[in-house]
């Protein structure tokens, strides 16, 4: 148990010291949030609803980013630099290592969610009920699982540069086409149809539902679970193929 705690603590320290994380997962979402709710006037019908909606978008954007990027790139880095080889010689078991990484990521996500929620609430004086705050936070925490699975897929790549490039593009494409930057209602019809099949849209959609006083739809949950299973199987398959060589 002590091993797990120390491992978790170190994972968290490493993420917090990563400047990319602080910039992309904390500063950027808050900055965007400020710009699109205060500077640029989007003429929403219901100002309060739009502010809550966009706060959810940005929090989802942040957590999705650190799920895909932080974990994946670090896995590639550790492998490329031989650290994972060294870890295999230590008595630390693979499962504890993996569990600690996941737990560490979750703590980081809770931190991101809390920071962005507080920033949003302060900037625009958003009034959600306590239950809505907690439920939307939980949704974002759990909804990140398929994206963590994407992170482990990215983590199977051999070169840090490729991993960074691919994950960056994937992250942006998923964010924009999933309606996290602007609602899909203002996008062309084709984009709206595509969004219906993207995990990022359903990740956001659940949070938007909660913020507007509803429960997430079954479809949101179903699609995220389906993607989680798909990515996990894919990652397992690729790992087995890599080991065979």
């Amino acid at each position, binding site marked *: 148990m002590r091993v797990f705690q120390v491992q978790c603590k170190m994972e968290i320290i490493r993420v917090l010291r990563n400047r990319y994380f602080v910039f992309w997962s904390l500063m950027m979402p808050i900055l965007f949030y400020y710009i699109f709710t205060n500077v640029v006037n989007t003429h929403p019908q219901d100002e309060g609803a739009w502010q809550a909606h966009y706060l959810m978008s940005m929090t989802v954007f942040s957590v999705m980013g650190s799920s895909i990027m932080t974990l994946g790139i670090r896995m590639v*880095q550790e492998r490329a*630099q031989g650290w994972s*080889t060294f870890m295999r010689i*230590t*008595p*630390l078991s693979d499962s504890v290592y993996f569990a600690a990484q996941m737990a560490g990521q979750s703590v980081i996500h809770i931190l991101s969610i809390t920071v962005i929620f507080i920033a949003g609430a302060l900037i625009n004086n958003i009034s959600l009920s306590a239950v809505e705050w907690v439920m939307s936070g939980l949704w974002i925490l759990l909804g990140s699982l398929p994206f963590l699975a994407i992170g482990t897929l990215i983590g199977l790549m051999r070169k840090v540069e490729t991993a960074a490039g691919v994950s960056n593009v994937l992250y942006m494409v998923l964010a924009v086409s999933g309606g996290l930057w602007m609602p899909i209602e203002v996008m062309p019809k084709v984009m709206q149809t595509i969004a219906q099949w993207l995990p990022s849209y359903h990740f956001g959609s659940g949070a938007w539902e909660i913020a507007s006083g509803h429960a997430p739809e079954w479809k949101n949950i179903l699609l995220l679970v389906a993607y989680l299973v798909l990515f996990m199987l894919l990652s397992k398959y690729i790992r087995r193929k890599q080991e065979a060589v």
Partner: protein
Amino acid sequence: MTEVLTLKNVTKSFRQKTAVNNISFSISKGEVVAILGPNGAGKTTTISMILGLLRPTEGEVKLFNRQPQEKQVREKIGTMLQEVSVMPGLKVREILELIRSYYPHPLPVKDLVNLTGLTEEDLKTRAEKLSGGQKRRLSFALALAGNPELIIFDEPTVGMDITSRKRFWQTVRTFAAQGKTIIFSTHYLQEADDAADRILLFKDGAIAADGAPAQIKARIAKPSVSFTAAPDISLEPLYHHSEIDDIYRKNNRVYVQSSNTDRVLELLFQEKLGARDIQIERGKLEEAFEELTSTTKEAI
């Protein structure tokens, strides 16, 4: 004596290449063993199999009578790999604390610092900012962190300056005196000779010799008798004597290699070869070793 490590008929083949070919040996508690051989001899491949990083194609590797991958084994070994690597994002002290937490009876950080020559300043430095030499020291400290019974180093002194090298061997001797088992690989004969009490000489993936440094040296560096002789003199008669290991011409001189030089002199006169300007040469170790090395290169 208790056996710490046993390899039985171990072979490792990569797609086209057999890197290690049917080797067997065992190492007892308290031995300091050098795996000596030129580049490409199969040292790293052998060490990787001992550490359970590679699976042998054939044969069996046992540490403390268990499989290399078992946790009980991992708790008793410490290692420094050929490619030094550190965990980015953490300070040296944090990495030491982290790795120490994996082992049941780790060495205190203070001891690790003293043993490896890390400084207080180093402890506060982030791993990615360390110089090559500092990384080596950290990697050395990580190998010792769990207070291991068996320590394995793959080419540990490559990239170390003289001071670090000295300190490294000093620490190794301290550990050896405590009854720990130490295995290290090197391609320097001198290093193996100085530090080990047993040498496994690797050549082309096989063990060419296994013994105390003095034995190995006697084997690879044979004394010879050299002389000048008229070019038309046939050296044929000498070939019939089994005491003679090798005969070759170099710089207009004939060299006759044998561990028994007295007998060679006797033969020279007996066979009436008209040898002049006779000299007896002690075997040059480094030269002999290099010769061994060069044949390996040709084989690749």
